[in-house]
């Protein structure tokens, strides 16, 4: 698709998900035909194969359903260890994994409420997506 092609709605892609993140918006895709929601978005519904989708903006608060404290990380993240990491359950059962910040490791509990926070600066490294974290709500 050439640059002159203007899409009406942004494509339901992972790149677009991260573009929204850099605008501090947590966006999921919803299939208009069958109602299935996708986080990350998918361009075609895996449930009914429809291409009719729309974007929904999600509440950034969710419940922590599991976590770990990572002590050995790949080279890119080794300077951050130890860091906490978990899976957040958002509205409608949609889930997002990510790093947890702003809380001592020994106070992290399954079931606690956390909120997604956005780091607006995109990474210098490939694939140049912005990072997001979970932290206790203000």
């Amino acid at each position, binding site marked *: 698709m050439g640059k002159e092609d203007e899409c009406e709605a942004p494509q339901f892609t*992972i790149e677009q998900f*991260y573009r929204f993140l850099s605008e501090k918006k947590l966006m999921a895709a919803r299939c208009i035909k069958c109602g299935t929601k996708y986080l*990350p978005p998918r361009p075609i519904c895996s449930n009914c194969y429809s291409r009719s989708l729309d974007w929904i903006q999600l509440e950034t608060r969710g419940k922590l*359903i*599991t*976590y*770990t*404290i*990572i*002590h*050995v*990380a*790949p*080279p890119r*993240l*080794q300077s*951050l260890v*130890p*860091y906490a*990491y*978990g*899976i957040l359950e958002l509205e409608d059962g949609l*889930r*997002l*994994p*990510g*790093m947890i910040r702003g809380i001592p*490791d020994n106070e992290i509990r*399954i079931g606690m409420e956390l909120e997604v926070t956005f780091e607006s600066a995109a990474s210098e490294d490939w*694939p140049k*997506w912005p*990072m*997001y974290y979970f932290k206790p709500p203000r």
Partner: protein
Amino acid sequence: MLVKGKPLVAVVSAGLSKFGKMEGFTGRELFIEAVGDALQRCPDINLRKDVKAVFVGMMSESFEHQGHIAPMLADWAGLLPAPAIRTEVACASSAAALRMGIFSILSGLYDVVLVGGLEKMTKRSTLEATEFLGMAADFPFEQWTGVTFPGLYALMATAHMHRYGTTEEQMGLVAVKNHHNGALNPKAHLQREVTLDKVLNSRMIAYPLKLYDCSLISDGASCAILTRPDIAGKYTDKPVYIIGSGQGSDSLALSQRDDLTSLRAARYAAREAYEMAGIKPRDIDVAEVHDCFTIAEIIAYEDLGFCKRGEGGRFIEDGTPMLDGELPINTSGGLKSKGHPVGATGVAQIYEVFLQLTGQAGKRQVEGCDIGLTHNVGGSGATCFVHILKGG
């Protein structure tokens, strides 16, 4: 048309290289060591004449900066111009090779094929290996956001502990058991016992998983020779038959799965394999399961139906899977002690069960075993294979 319990293929021989930090050896050299081992165990086969195709599993080109390995391994094993294909489904890559080998025989195309796998991991640093293994996780939402492979299993472990009350001690007992068995296996990477105290006090990798909850970064290769069941007698007096083969898939990202305490792909693969074999979990005499982390073995007990959901911790505490228990599990030492050269692991499990069912397992031999099972998981569980084997 498949008939319940009817052999799919025969395993007429299997071979394994030494597992460990095999300094000075490349992957291909380890692979032909495994092939040589299989040949020694089955002198009546003429590899060059009989083997009509090669299927080999390897997870990552990154370790040795080497792609296109299948024809190269066929060459080094003296099998040219037999067709050769590499299979990749992370840590289950060679179980995939095995299954492709089974399909190729069932299709009627080939009578004899060689399957196997390899990985040469230890020349890389731990951080590099962590990064390469991490590629089997979902990049945009797992690797990018900071989770590691031990981290993914740690997320399952925390969830299992929270839901079922599973303890770090119970996970530690898996490591103690597998090191005990590995100490009896001359091909194991770490042939030494560990105490529960040592496991629990080892350094943290990803809470609640400590160093001794994690399998090893190893070098090694495995192979097995498969034939049509009705011609196995040409090659050996003691064939083993594969009577069930199952495989399932799940989302690559752990967070997308409904249940974090069980692997749906494993439950699916197990059901398929048990149904094909016409047997129940209680009929299994010996099993090799994918203990990439101690929690993974506890979850495997449950997914394979050896105990109820949530009771995996008590299952190890009760001693059932010990070498002298009712259902010995990971008699080889498992990934934990034998080692985990990821691409070799699936067929290495077949090798161990082959030895057990033919009475060749030496000091770790389980007496009177007739039916064995292997369970090989890819990544954090997006792929799983279960195979069921029966002695001749």
